[in-house]
Structures are given as C-alpha cells and as structure tokens.
C-alpha cells in the first residue's frame, strides 16, 4: 500500500505529521516514538531569537478541547539548529520548521538561515498564532499580508513553503488562494480558534494571557469544512488539522481535501497514537481496496446529497 504524499519537492512516507507546538522539538518524544516513522514533524514555532512566552497558567481544558496561550516560548532558530536539529537528523526525522516573525524581514531572515541548515525539509510559516499580539497573525488576517510574506520567503529559499492559515477569518479559502498565487508549495490549516475561559469566582481569565487558542476534537467539524472549502479554491497540496483523534478523522480530512494531516492535541493524551493511526489507515485501504491513499483526497461525494437537496 502506498501512503506517501508529495509536498512540492518533498516526499513524505505517510500523511501523519506531528503538529507544531504539540510535539516539542521532536527530540522530547525520541524515546517513545520512532521519529522516522512519522510523515513529518512540525517543530515548535521559532522566532529568530529565544523567547520566554507567556506566564502560566498557559492551558485550560474545555469541552472536547483545550485553550493554550504558550506565547511561542522557544529557543530561537540558531539554538535549534545547534542543539536540536543534529539529533533529529540522526534519527532520520522529516523536519518541518514552524517559523514566526514580528516583521516580514524576520520571516525572510529565518528562512534564509534554515535554507543553509542540513536536515530541514520544509518551512511552515506560522502567520496564524492567535495568542501573541505582535506579528504573525497580522500577516495571517490580511490577504496582502499573506501574499507578501509568502512571496518574500519564496525569493530566499528552495525549501517547500507551507503557510499555516488561521481559521479566525470570514473566508479562509481566499487566504489559501493568496498563498498559492504567492508561490506556496502547500497550505496547512487550521491553527487554533481565538477563545477564552473565565473563573467565575475570581472573575479572572483562566489563562494568564486572557485569551488563547482552542484546539482538540471540539473544532474538528469546522476545520474539516475549511479544508473542504480550500480544496475547491486551490490546486496545491493541503495539510489539514484540527481535532484529529483517530484514523477515521485522518481519513475524514483527506476525503474533504487534505493531502496530509497534522495531529496535535491528541498527542498529549495519547503519545503512542501514531502506530494506531497508521494501522487504522491501512485497514481502511484494505477494506475499500485502495492502493494509493492519495486517491481518496478530495473525493467527497456531494452529488447524492445535492440531488436530495434539490428534490425539496
């Protein structure tokens, strides 16, 4: 069975990618997961410099989900290359570096640095982190901003570029289109939904940062819809995510239009899920006699439904 996925010049063994911020720098999981067995690892978002992130509390659980306001704590791109990348390389991981910038120049600078680093396979442009004021999201919420940052990074790197889109917009597919036109190799979506939770007794936000990003199974139906809309808007590969908790969910995203997926929150609950996800996909392919997993991408059959609809 062929589970492989092509993202621009990059070939993934399978469509299962660890979602950024949900798998540390990958090395944290090296003992319990064969990093090379994953389709890829999107490492925690990196700025040029180190960053302390937000004070705790940084997460709070919500129905079938969680809010996070980590604030992109990170060791910066230089330390990442020195201190983490070598082990990832040694373990044969396919590394997708999730990068953030407060300015366009910062994105460009980081991309340039990563392009010269051995063992980096793709760049995911995080223009969608909902819980830091500066940077990122300002690009992600404006079409020219998105087009601009993708085009600028495109000029300085041959690595596949995957802008990560925010769901906190009216029409996510227009952002996918802007990214495609600017030369992105793929788009990934969704990042988290801006949200909040309140302690009614202290009347204070449960997160130090007041607001945070909602992730987990709760958001999956919205994320699947957004992937479906993007599939109809762009030709480039789509990396879908949002609440994947089982192989059925992976397949749901792929049928909606995702070529690959990322798995985030559920990895916290079940760090050993990766093997089961792959087994589940294989069993499905067996059952439905599917030789190439990519053959199901975007194959949602809406005719039956549309007929039904018209019939009333």
């Amino acid at each position, binding site marked *: 069975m062929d589970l492989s996925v092509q993202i621009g010049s990059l070939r993934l063994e399978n469509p299962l990618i660890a979602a950024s*911020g949900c798998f540390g720098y990958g090395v944290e999981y090296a003992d319990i997961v064969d990093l090379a067995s994953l389709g890829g690892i999107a490492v925690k978002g990196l700025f040029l410099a180190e960053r302390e992130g937000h004070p*705790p509390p940084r997460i709070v659980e919500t129905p*079938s989900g969680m809010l996070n306001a980590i604030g992109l704590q990170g060791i910066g791109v230089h330390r990442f290359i020195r201190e983490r990348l070598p082990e990832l390389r040694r373990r044969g991981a396919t590394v997708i570096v999730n990068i953030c910038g407060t300015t366009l120049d910062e994105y460009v600078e980081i991309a340039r640095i990563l392009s010269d680093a051995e063992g980096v396979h793709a760049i995911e442009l995080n223009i969608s982190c909902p819980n830091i004021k500066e940077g990122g999201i300002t690009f992600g919420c404006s079409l020219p901003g998105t087009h601009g940052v993708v085009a600028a990074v495109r000029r300085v790197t041959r690595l596949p570029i995957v802008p990560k889109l925010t769901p906190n917009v009216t029409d996510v597919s227009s952002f996918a289109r802007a990214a495609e036109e600017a030369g992105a190799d793929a788009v990934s979506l969704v990042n988290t939904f801006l949200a909040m939770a309140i302690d009614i007794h202290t009347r204070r936000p449960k997160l130090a940062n007041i607001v945070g990003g909602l992730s987990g199974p709760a958001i999956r139906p919205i994320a699947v819809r957004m992937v479906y809309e993007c599939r109809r808007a762009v030709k480039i590969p789509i990396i879908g995510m949002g609440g994947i908790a089982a192989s059925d969910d992976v397949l749901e995203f792929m049928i909606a239009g995702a070529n690959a997926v990322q798995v985030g929150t559920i990895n*916290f609950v079940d760090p050993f899920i990766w093997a089961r996800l792959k087994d589940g996909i294989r069993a499905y392919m067996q059952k439905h006699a599917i030789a190439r997993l990519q053959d199901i991408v975007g194959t949602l059959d809406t005719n039956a439904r549309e007929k039904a609809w018209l019939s009333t």
Partner: protein
Amino acid sequence: MPVDIDAAVIANRRLSADYNVLSLAAPEIADAARPGQFVMIKTSAGQDPLLRRPFSIFEILRDRSGAASGISIFNKRVGVGTSLLTRVERGAQLAVLGPLGRPFEPIDPPAEAWMIAGGVGLAPFVTLAAALRARETPTSLFYGARRAEELYCVDLFEALGVRVVLATEDGSRGARGRVTVPLELALRDRPLGNPVKMYACGPTAMMRACARLAADHGRACDVSLEQVMGCGLGGCYSCVVLARSERGGEPHHTRTCIDGPVFDAQRVVWEAVSG
C-alpha cells in the same frame, strides 16, 4: 522510558469524602519508578475530560514474591477528573502513562532527610521514604493539614521507620498551626554541623515558606511542584515555572514535567509561581 498501560483497578480505598487511594495493576511502571516520579492518568474512557491528569506515584505494590506488580495513587477530589477517580470501581481499566519526571535524589547518611508535606502533598513521600530507608538515612516527616481528620496514612511512614511530626491548623492533632511552625523549631535546634536535606511538597505557599526557611538556615531543599500539565512529556510547554538552570544565571520558563517536578528550591523564582 515511559510506557502507557491499560491498568486494571485493583482496589479503591476511600479515606474520606475527598480522599481515596487507588491501586492499579501496572508492573512495568512500578518496576521502573523512582522516588517522586509521577504518572499521567486518563480519568475516563471517553473524551470527557479530554486530557490526562498527573498523579504522584504513592506506593509501589508488590506481589507475594516481592516483585513490583503495580502502583497506587493518593487522590484528592478537586474537580472533574479527580472526582471520577474517587468513584472508579474495582475491575475498571485506566490508561496510565509513566513513570515520568525527574525523581527525588535520596540523601545518604550521616545526613538526615526531612520531608515536609502539606495536604495532598504527602503523595510523593512514601516512595522517597522507602528509598531513604534502604540507605538507612534517618528520616523525618513534617506533615500538616487543616484538621486531624485530614491527616492520612501516617502509619505507612511509621512502618518505614520515619519519625513523624504532625501539625493541624486547628490544633486538633500535633502542633497547632502550619507545618512550617514545628519545622522552623526543628531547624533552629539543629546544629549546623549535622547536615539535613529538606524535601517539600504541598501548597505553593508552604513550599515557598520551606524554601525561605531552608535558605535562612542554610539547608538544601528540594521541592516537588504541581503545575497544570497537558502532556507530561515536554511536548506542550504548559507546565512551566520561572527557574534558574543548575548553573544559575537568568531564570527561564522551565518545564516542570521533564526538568521537574523536583527542583532545588533555590532555583525557583517563587514570586512568579501561581497559587
């Protein structure tokens, strides 16, 4: 290397309305566990609640042959997940991930070990007491709660040859007031020449006080911190405290799940610790 086990509930011993001891069949974890380590437990079969909850390994259970057969946890009801764990019945299965975290380093004689526990903070000390006993390190437990009824499992420690000093805020058993009251007296009386290592776990205020007392009296003190944890494996960065590295320098947001939960008290920037 942590493992994830579908552990059968062997027993659920209720201590009070809010406390119970849950025994779980988890040989691999029991076998690998070191003092003060913790596990991440899925408190329900479904997704409500979604995330696992962290619990100190309370006891190592052994079969007749003396082989490690499982662990117990000392559970205090504070919310959704801990409530489910008070009700769970014998025979049920719970996913248990562990052992996790950096353990206590038991000190060797002639030094003495003083364990300071507040409320549910008692949890990590049975395993530490056992390790200290193996080293024949003279060990004391300073254990405080609001009232006599909330002092649990003292016998476990006495059986391990631990000298137990109790305190209750209402004076209904042991010294009246916070556990730090008898602790401070003991520190005063203790000649500096006789080394003591302190180990503290409990409410933030208590651990903060222990850290100060340790500094004032020039004693080493390890604390076991309890931050909200999303993953327990270093993946989410939810569990940080502001702490200096062993080599000192600027404090950074440090993950308590893999760089802790045990920290040298002097590394922690206590003003920044919530609760």
